[in-house]
């Protein structure tokens, strides 16, 4: 009996493997670089807990690549995304894999810690990199060829501190942040120093150490006891949703302020979106914007992938267009080597290259450190939508 059972398992597993292998063989049209095109690669978490971001970047970039290929008869692009599981070691592996395949420009990577490791490799191999979403300050340090399209974490912290100080001068601000996450602690550090430099005081600072943390009663209680009427949450949307739910149960109703990691909270399954009413957040992109370009992008994205794009998808879309425009301006293309493109693009980006009409900012420019300059937007959630303030 046991012998038969084992046989069944082995046969079933072998069948699954066979199916998996043949399944991949079929859909090869979108994977792999094509000759005669500008080979743009990225690495991001396509599996694991951060997969939402990697998949969004992959989809957003692919959409832009397809659009450009359809509209430009001369300059063709091809795009490959490799999985890095949000791990620095795997990300370097993914980068090397892309190098093996002949990548010319890196549109990544997606998350900060892996991107920092890959940035060093990209620097050593002279490959130009424009990351859509790796917002940490370490990404652009120690190199001359890695640029960010998103706000860096410190700049987000500063922008929020300025906004609160200017618009809510009497607020008693409490903070709950993830001290085991460099994104969260990076924003918090700058927020704290900027806010305190304005003579303001944060009434309560509470930390937790894992995004999987489910119980925030202790943190919320001490914020409540300290009299905080505004809670700054520089964290991702999953823990933020737990905080809002638990605060509601406690009868504690502060005004919440989030950053770009909060994006996605309205689409979270099992979360009562009424609790998010009145939440303020700093985000460069909202799918509910009245803007024509954004509407067109959202419609195309929904048609292609069956869901609303998040900020990461818009960032990636902008990255591809920014790279495309910069290559045209610099006069480099598919025939140049990665190193030639890298040198030309560094000159272009440092030389006042302006990317106009992006989804995540009207006019973007870069400084030589690699940081982007665009106007931050603050939105308020009203009626289940982001309304720009």
């Amino acid at each position, binding site marked *: 009996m046991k012998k038969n059972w084992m046989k069944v*398992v082995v046969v079933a597993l072998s069948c699954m*493997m066979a199916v998996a*292998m043949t399944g991949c063989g079929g859909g090869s049209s979108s*994977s792999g670089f094509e000759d005669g095109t500008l080979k743009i690669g990225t690495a991001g978490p396509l599996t694991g807990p951060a997969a939402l971001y990697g998949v969004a970047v992959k989809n957003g970039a692919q959409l832009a690549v397809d659009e450009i290929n359809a509209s430009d008869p001369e300059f063709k692009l091809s795009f490959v995304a490799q*999985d890095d599981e949000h791990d620095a070691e795997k990300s*370097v*592996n993914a980068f090397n894999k892309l190098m093996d395949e002949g990548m010319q420009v890196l549109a990544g990577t997606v998350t900060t*810690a892996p991107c920092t490791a890959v940035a060093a490799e990209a620097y050593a191999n002279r490959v130009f990199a424009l990351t859509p979403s790796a917002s940490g300050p370490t990404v652009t340090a120690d190199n001359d060829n890695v640029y960010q399209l998103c706000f860096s974490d410190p700049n987000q912290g500063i922008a929020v501190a300025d906004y609160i100080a200017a618009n809510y001068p009497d607020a008693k601000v409490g903070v709950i942040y993830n001290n*085991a996450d460099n994104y969260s602690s990076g924003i918090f*550090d700058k927020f704290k120093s900027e806010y305190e430099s304005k003579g303001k005081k944060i009434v309560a600072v509470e930390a937790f150490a894992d995004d999987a943390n489910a119980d925030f009663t202790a943190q919320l209680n001490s914020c409540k006891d300290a009299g905080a009427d505004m809670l700054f949450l520089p964290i991702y949307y999953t823990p933020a949703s737990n905080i809002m739910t638990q605060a509601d149960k406690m009868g504690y109703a502060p005004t919440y302020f989030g950053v770009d990691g909060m994006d996605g909270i309205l689409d979270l399954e099992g979360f009562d979106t009424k609790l998010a009413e009145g939440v303020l957040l700093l985000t460069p992109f909202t799918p509910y914007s009245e803007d024509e370009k954004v509407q067109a992008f959202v419609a195309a994205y929904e048609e292609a992938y069956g869901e609303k794009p998040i900020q990461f998808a818009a960032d990636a879309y902008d990255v591809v267009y920014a790279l495309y425009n910069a290559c045209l301006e610099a006069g480099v293309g598919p025939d140049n080597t990665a190193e030639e493109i890298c040198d030309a693009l560094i000159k272009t980006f440092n030389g006042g290259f302006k990317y106009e009409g992006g989804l995540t900012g009207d006019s973007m420019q870069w400084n030589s450190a690699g940081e982007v300059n665009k106007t931050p937007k603050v939105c308020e959630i009203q009626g289940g939508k982001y309304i720009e303030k």
Partner: protein
Amino acid sequence: MEKIKTPDTKKLLKKAGKGAYGKEALISYGIVIIGYILLKLGAATGIIGFNLQGQFVPICVYVSLAISLNLVVGISGELSLGHAGFMAVGAFTGIIAARMTEGVFASGNTRLFVAVIVGAIFAAIAGFIIGIPILGLRGDYLAIVTLAFGEIVRNFMNVLYFAKDENGLRFAFNHTIPGIDNSQRIITGAIGATSVQKTASFEAGIILVLFTLFVVLNLKNSKHGRGIMAVRDNRIAGESIGIDVKKYKLMAFVVSAALAGMAGAVFGQNYSTLAPIKFNFNTSVLVLVFVVLGGIGNIWGGMIAAALLTVLPEALRQFADYRMLTYAIVLIVVMICTYNPKIRARFSMLIDKVNPFKRKGDQAVTEGGGSDE
């Protein structure tokens, strides 16, 4: 130990021990050297691309970790789930040591050597401190405590800040160091170490593996090693003939920790950045999987498993979206195949059939640690 054996049995024991040692050492060292030559040839001729070349050092590190964990799990017979913790101690102290000696030693290899030594020392200290109170525990309890230790190390690293300025090393706990610019930072809490100068090389990795092998194999085949195994196989019998149980358990644990620290130091010197999150529970379990897959107590089996399981996820990149699914399936199939007695018997029959050096009555016993303690 009392001298109760007659010279005859002593000689026999020595001979038997030497034979097993010779074979195991030959296979283990052979795998490393042949692997090195093949990979070097592949890289030189261009058969091996960037992707695999980039994994040379991690492969060496994981192989070395598998060997050192085998000392605790296989030879000492204790389940440890905190190996990544020792690796983390070695990696971060190694990074600090390498940064502090930047002005002293111009050569990257010397700094790497310093990092490895410092990493080993600190990991050994950590192993000693954690080992003393917990080695009285057995089985599951030890596993739980080592698991907790690994998490404590990681969370401790999350709030630790180190920097180097003209006054020397500065450190802070739970807040950033004021007045430090980016180039002076060494470790920044959860962000971890940044701007690390890469000094690790494939050769250094191979030397690490050979050294780890040398230590573990020699320990295993020494008087102390037999003491460790005697305690594993039967604690009470061991105690009754005067073997100091705590001493031998601690010895295996500390040596294993020091070797893990060395591997961690090389790993830390191979990437420009290293975050504490890398050393979470998953990494400990991954190393344990290498050991279990290779056969608990089987040194070279663990080495092969470590190398294969490090390369496998990369080799499966062509499966794109199905990559991790395929990885999991391969792992399950391999685990079932290597642990099913019927399939194993069939495999060893096959090997015997094609093995020209087959000796009569030579049974293919590859596992050392079959104790149920």
